[in-house]
């Protein structure tokens, strides 16, 4: 085997890519991770860090089960990472809220959850609608505009930037080769191996795992797969470090273990990660102050925008190629929530050379054709 020949090439050095690479390395494989450069689009530097269950699965019921599987595996996953690297990614699962600032928002929330539950094949898990008083007992600092919310005890969060660093450290210590500034231009398959032609040279590997986020749309057809994407931009506002005041993450607002408060969850049709719409930040800030008035005087230290990795229907895509045996796609929006699954479930499947249909069959991109035919 040539020096730059590997068992598996993981395309993408974001959270999905490094979680998969770590899992592959645990299976004893020789792995290379091909990444882009420092200023390229990186969703993993711009996520909200929730390990989130509530309301997942509306439109594709099996996604709820897949999400709960990862949520349940997360504790063990973070322990393994801590053993290997000494770094604590601060996974916590105290249960999380979606807060409503008007009766209409609360009604919409209840209606969404009802539709979610009534789906055929939906896994049963508890999400409660709570009135203002019940919310206040758990979140004493809410403002007068909060009329209620929904709560799910499976929801949690993590320090996602530390997770990103920890996974990079872990793959580094395991001997995985990490090659930044190796944007993959084309992929060919000759002599039973894949050749990945990158800006930094050609890399050869027996298998390929495409974990390149929105770029999977461009790469997947090169190995007989498809990965339809519709990227969107999200913006986040971050405050200075504050003393702990919030014991539960809210889907649009959480306090990190470091003390900063992250505020966000906007959606804009834009693929320009350098742009920032101040009015969107202002809306986020305004809602945050209405939810927790004590935040009004907190200093905003940073804002950022990032491009969400979003498949066309918002659900993950896991596929293996029929025409190019050994090629896989691992693609999803929720790279933090699903990190445990990618590391502990999907990576071993790729190592074995076969996706376990009992787990991931609903997430094949073939679903897009079924819908078109229907």
């Amino acid at each position, binding site marked *: 085997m040539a020096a730059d020949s590997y068992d598996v090439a993981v395309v993408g050095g974001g959270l999905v890519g490094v979680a998969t690479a770590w899992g592959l390395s645990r299976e004893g494989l020789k792995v290379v991770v091909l990444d882009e450069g*420092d200023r390229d689009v990186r969703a993993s530097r711009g996520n909200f860090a929730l390990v989130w269950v509530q309301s997942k699965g509306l439109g594709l019921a099996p996604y709820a089960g897949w999400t709960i599987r990862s949520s349940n595996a997360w504790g063990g996953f973070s322990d393994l990472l801590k053993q290997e690297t000494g770094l604590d990614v601060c996974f916590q699962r105290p249960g999380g809220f979606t807060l409503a600032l008007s009766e209409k928002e609360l009604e919409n929330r209840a209606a969404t959850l009802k539709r979610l539950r009534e789906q055929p094949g939906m896994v049963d898990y508890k999400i409660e609608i709570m009135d203002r008083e019940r919310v206040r007992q758990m979140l004493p600092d809410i403002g007068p505009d909060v009329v209620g919310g929904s709560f799910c005890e499976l929801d949690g969060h993590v320090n996602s930037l530390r997770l990103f660093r920890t996974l990079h*450290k872990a793959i580094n210590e395991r001997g995985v080769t990490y090659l*930044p*500034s190796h944007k993959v231009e084309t992929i060919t398959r000759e002599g039973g191996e894949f050749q990945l032609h990158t800006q930094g040279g050609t890399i050869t590997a027996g298998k390929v795992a495409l974990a390149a986020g929105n770029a999977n749309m461009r790469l997947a057809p090169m190995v007989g797969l498809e990965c339809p994407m519709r990227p969107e931009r999200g913006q986040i*506002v971050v405050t200075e470090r504050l003393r702990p005041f919030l014991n539960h993450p809210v889907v649009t607002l959480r306090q990190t273990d470091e003390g900063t408060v992250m505020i966000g969850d906007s959606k*804009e049709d834009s693929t320009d990660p350098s742009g920032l719409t101040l009015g969107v930040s*202002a*809306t986020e800030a*305004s809602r945050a102050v209405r939810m927790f008035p004590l935040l*009004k005087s907190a200093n905003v230290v940073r804002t950022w925008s990032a491009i969400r990795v979003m498949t066309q229907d918002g659900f993950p895509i896991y596929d293996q190629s029929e025409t190019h045996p050994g090629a896989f796609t691992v693609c999803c929006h929720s790279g933090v929530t699903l990190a445990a699954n990618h590391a502990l479930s999907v990576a071993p499947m790729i190592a074995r050379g076969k996706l376990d249909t009992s787990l991931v069959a609903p997430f094949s991109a073939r679903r897009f054709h079924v819908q078109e035919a229907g």
Partner: protein
Amino acid sequence: MNASELASSYDLVVIGGGPAGLAAAATAARAGVATVLFDENPGVGGQIYRGITANPVRNRAILGEEYWAGSALAAEAKASGASIVNGATVWSLDRTLTVGVSIAGQARMLTAKRVIIATGSLERPFPIPGWTLPGVMTAGGAQTLLKAQGLVPTGRTVMAGNGPLLWLLAAQILRAGGRIEAILDTSSRLNWLRAAMFLPDFLLSPYFKKGLALLREVKAKVDVIPVGNVAAVGTDKLKEVVADGHHIPADLLLLHQGVVPNVNLAIAAGVAHRWNDRQLCFAPVLDADFQSSVPGIAVAGDGAGIAGGTAAAERGRIAAIAAVRALKPDAKIADPQTARQRLQREEMGRAFLDELYRPVAALRQPEGDTIACRCEEVTAGQIRETARMGCEGPNQMKAFLRCGMGPCQGRMCGLTVTELIAEERGTTPDEVGYYRLRPPVKPITLGELASLPISEAERKAVER
């Protein structure tokens, strides 16, 4: 003036009230351009003429005639009709020339037809062991206290580093009756070799005679010790300064190794920057009128590359003349040629000074437990280790280690982080690049952010 009294739009917004900003605002306003100047400090003058309009230092000899030259500039700006707003922090500027400004805790957005960024310079990071200890301060900080509040160091004061400002401050402290235990000169002897070829220009520049006299004045009274390294030692405050085996008990250590452009606002506005290897910093890419890569935005003063206060004023005038010509083609305005000639003369000695006072690598690229990012307390060793792990640039580094994520927004660590990565990767700082910066470039409160105008589309991007 409070934020609600501001107009919703100005012909020209000048950001920064140092020499460049004052000269720009005066030039433009006199030509009939509706001009507002925002400055963050309680009074105009910037850092070089800090406190110029309300100075408590009665004895003019202490600060020197160069300082008092700032009075004329401040008076000129005041008389010009420009609206000058102090205590006004500009925290956002974008390609549409929309400006976000906060005054006394109230935020406002307004638009400009042209913008001149005159945010000047800040002192180059001086990341040595113990530089975060109370009792360690920048030389510029001590100079500000002298200029604006008439405070002189007492107790045992040690200065370390190099550069014109260090010698000037030493002279000012001595003239004010202060005492300096020692100056630890960190210049490399080798710098002379590189500087020598620029000596002829320097001999003709206004800096030559002034500089020489200053050195003589200081060296007559203070021990100057050449050193290769410096460390501040103490537990919760400075106890002693250690350098090349010298142990000097000290209450105050003043650090300085030159100044670099204050780039945060310009970078956040999308202005292209490039590495200047002689000045070891990022500086904006500008044309002869100091216009940047973003149409309508100029960068004048030391923010355009370090050249000193007198040059800054000329740059401000040149940028303002270009703005006037663009906004009011019929206005009577001086030909920029005069300002260009004066600027050229001011810039003559700069290359010599840059080379002579080029800070040594050891004091720019620390190692081990020395803190690089003061806000988040990230060490040089962590940055080096992470770079060796494959982290290619400052943005990934920020995500991994939080360096640059604190309230100073990378101002204290940005150059260090870039240079450390470049050194570990064996590449250039230009290749490594700088932090991606976004508004607010100075912290504003969540309440201020919430008070900004919101369009229906922007609201719908969040409320679902």
